């Protein structure tokens, strides 16, 4: 029959086309194809510089300085910097061979361009403007009370950037890795053209690569920047960044060879690729913890909070959730580098507490609830994602089994979750915090009595004093001690927050991929990577 022949012909044509497209992507130079799971945010350092920017800036935009995996300074756009004795005036000397991808020099004005745009009261997308507030005049300019002209970030000459702070800020260099401190090309990156960042004509790079193509929600492509000061070290010709939101699709893309790198894979990949060179674990600066509402009885009783903290077997909890959850008793993210040593902050001290079920039972009995008898049924509120639901059930089972406490689970939509957390209408609530920059203060200043992120009513003058003292000293070792004492007070002594786990991203790297480095936040960097044949 003719119809059948026609169908057969059609099918074979389609089949013939399949291998052609697979071959088409490979050019002459080395093209790395990497896939990430989130296309949230944009690529404007003075805009919504979240997920998508995080990957992009490591490829295309160099900050003044950054840090390597040991927390050591790496000079990027700046060659050196010095700070005045009073810790207020920071002077950065830019590389004179620093160039944008159009060949023009990177000047101090390009850094000021981002700072000014981020602080402009007309910029409604500037979500990280507050990291600039340590700069004299910045907060006033943003709120409209002061003038942008009075912001104390000025160019002494083309290659000298001077920033004056309103008060000493010992973690100022860590802030330099957040969006608003990155440069953007003066005259091209403007508030008048809010879409400049997705147009290759205006979206220049001063880093190893520059953008050549951008398709919203789909992918963007970057090519080697021939003018990059360290271009000799760059091996790849092009990098294609694909945004794949579905984990199965991400895995399929890797397994079919459509991409060389897949980031944020399902947790079971951690098991099935265990021991393989292809498995890459990205240690996130994330902390998952339980917030007890201090205004709710019996959570106002320290013994009860301590019993809950000690009565959970975190290894068992994480075994239920998957290989991407790692047990942790630390509130400051387990993998955060210390400022005073080349170790993790969490490894510089003894654990804040040790799990001890017997002691937990004794504490609960002492508080008047032997074996959980008479203990009211508390609710545990959490966003109802797969992972958080598993976490909730595991915690519920642990508390029931170890302490005889009954917890009612209350899984809610994300939106409801954040509202509930903010207005304090919960008993126990899951909280999670991912650092914006590498410094413990990012976690610890959330629980001062006047912090907007203090959702459970922590009110400790002693704690406030420790945080204030840490902000006042310029001695990193002394400061580090103060922060340790603050964390000890918050967790180990008062159990105002109850850490449970930290998280990692499971990634796969093609065996041909070499030269991947890691920064201080545990993020993989592909700028100097290479693909071997």
């Amino acid at each position, binding site marked *: 029959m003719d119809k059948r022949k026609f169908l057969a012909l059609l099918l074979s044509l*389609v089949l013939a*086309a399949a291998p052609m*497209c697979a071959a088409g992507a490979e050019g002459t130079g080395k093209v790395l194809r990497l896939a990430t799971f989130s*296309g949230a945010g944009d690529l404007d350092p003075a805009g919504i510089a979240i997920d998508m920017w995080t990957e992009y800036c490591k490829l295309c935009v160099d900050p003044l300085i950054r840090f390597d995996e040991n927390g050591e300074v790496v000079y990027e756009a700046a060659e050196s910097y010095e700070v005045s004795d009073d810790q207020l005036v920071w002077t950065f000397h830019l590389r004179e061979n620093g160039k944008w991808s159009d060949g023009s020099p990177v000047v101090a004005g390009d850094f000021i361009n981002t700072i000014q745009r981020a602080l402009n009261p007309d910029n409604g*997308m500037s979500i990280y403007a*507050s990291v600039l507030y340590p700069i004299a005049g910045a907060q006033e300019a943003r709120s409209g009370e002061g003038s942008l002209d009075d912001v104390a970030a000025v160019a002494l000459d083309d290659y000298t950037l001077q920033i004056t702070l309103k008060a000493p800020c010992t973690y100022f260099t860590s802030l330099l890795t957040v969006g608003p401190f990155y440069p953007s090309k003066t005259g091209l990156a403007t508030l008048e053209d*809010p879409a400049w960042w*997705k147009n290759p004509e205006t979206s220049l790079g001063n880093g190893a690569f520059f953008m050549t193509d951008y398709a919203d929600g789909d992918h963007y492509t970057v090519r080697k920047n021939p003018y990059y000061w360290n271009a000799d070290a760059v091996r790849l010709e092009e990098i294609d960044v694909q945004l794949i939101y579905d984990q199965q699709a991400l895995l*399929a893309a890797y397994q079919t060879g459509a991409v060389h790198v897949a980031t944020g894979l399902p947790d079971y990949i951690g098991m099935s690729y265990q021991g393989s060179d292809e498995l890459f674990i990205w240690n996130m600066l994330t902390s998952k913890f339980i917030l007890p509402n201090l205004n709710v009885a019996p959570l106002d009783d320290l013994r009860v909070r301590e019993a809950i903290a000690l009565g959970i077997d975190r290894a068992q909890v994480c075994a239920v959730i998957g290989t991407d959850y790692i047990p942790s008793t630390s509130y400051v993210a387990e993998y955060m580098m210390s400022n005073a040593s080349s170790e993790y902050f969490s490894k510089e001290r003894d654990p804040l507490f040790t799990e001890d079920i017997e002691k937990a039972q004794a504490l609960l009995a002492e508080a008047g609830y032997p074996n959980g008898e008479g203990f009211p049924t508390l609710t545990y509120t959490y966003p109802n994602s797969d992972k958080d639901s598993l976490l909730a059930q595991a915690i519920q089972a642990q508390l029931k089994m170890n302490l005889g406490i009954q917890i009612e689970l209350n899984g809610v939509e994300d*939106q409801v979750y954040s509202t509930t957390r903010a207005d304090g209408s919960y008993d126990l609530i899951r909280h999670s915090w991912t650092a914006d920059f590498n410094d413990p203060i990012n976690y610890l200043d959330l629980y001062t009595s006047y912090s907007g992120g203090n959702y459970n009513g922590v009110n400790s003058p002693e704690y406030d004093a420790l945080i204030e003292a840490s902000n006042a000293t310029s001695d990193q070792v002394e400061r580090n001690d103060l922060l340790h004492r603050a964390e000890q007070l918050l967790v180990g002594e008062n159990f105002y927050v109850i850490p449970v786990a930290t998280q990692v991203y499971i990634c796969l790297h093609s065996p041909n991929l070499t030269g991947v480095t890691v920064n201080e936040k545990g993020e993989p960097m592909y700028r100097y990577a290479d693909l071997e044949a």
Partner: protein
Amino acid sequence: MLSYILRRIGIGLITLLALVVLTFLLVHLMPGNPFDIANLTPSNQEEMMRFYGLDRPMGEQLAQYIGKLLHGDFGISFKKTGVTVRGLIASEAPATMLIGGIAFLVALVLGIAIGIRMAVTQREWVRGGILTLTTIGISVPNYVLALLLMLVFGVGLKWFPTMGLSTPAHYVLPVFTLAVYPIAQIARLVKSSYGEALNQDYVVMAQAKGLSRARISLLHVLKNAMIPVITTAGPMAAFLLTGSFVVETIYTVPGIGREFVTAVSNRDYTVVMGLTIFIGALIILCNLAADILCAAVDPRIRLGKR
């Protein structure tokens, strides 16, 4: 006929207005705010809300929104600097409509062909076999189908690519995933209506007149058997053209189905509203087209008294 069409358009417009108001209210009644992201403190969030006028009374916001809509302005995205909702729809709709359109055509052609085959075949096992297949086609949810096809033909056999739409081969799996359900549905519809039409007196009459089998089936039987298909084709086209979150997410197609779900979870109010209105307008248009087609084929419909 004209007054029938005008009446249908009028109803469509009223539906659209109701949709706009309802979507606006529902979106703004969602708990939380769009700026509860990335460690933003409550005071920063309030700042952003004020900037976008989200702190003003709901009525005022609604009036302003409708006023802008009338000028074709869908607003800007809260989550991507410099992205207008209209630009977003313009850039994402083509991919969705292309795979949806192809799937629609494939479903019509294959569905009708399979349906006729089922109706005319004398062999019981052919009919039973096809019936089983169509039952599976209707009952297997598309996320299962999408994953299955991806794993078998993409990851396992490596016949077709699984990501994006860069070459014709990229269309095969998403289009097929989308088309399976409508193929099965149309095939079953055609089977029963075609089988029914075959037994009508005018067919016997045509046969008696000595007309060719092809002429009878195409001209006389098919035309009458098509009415239920056209009625279903309207909503079906709407269903296919407005994009499938599952298919677009699994095959990484940058389309409006995927964008819609992302926007809801990101609380990107303007994008959610813009896409709802766009999708709603498409559904209304498709139903309108189906109604008009039906009326053209069957005079009884347009003469029907209201």
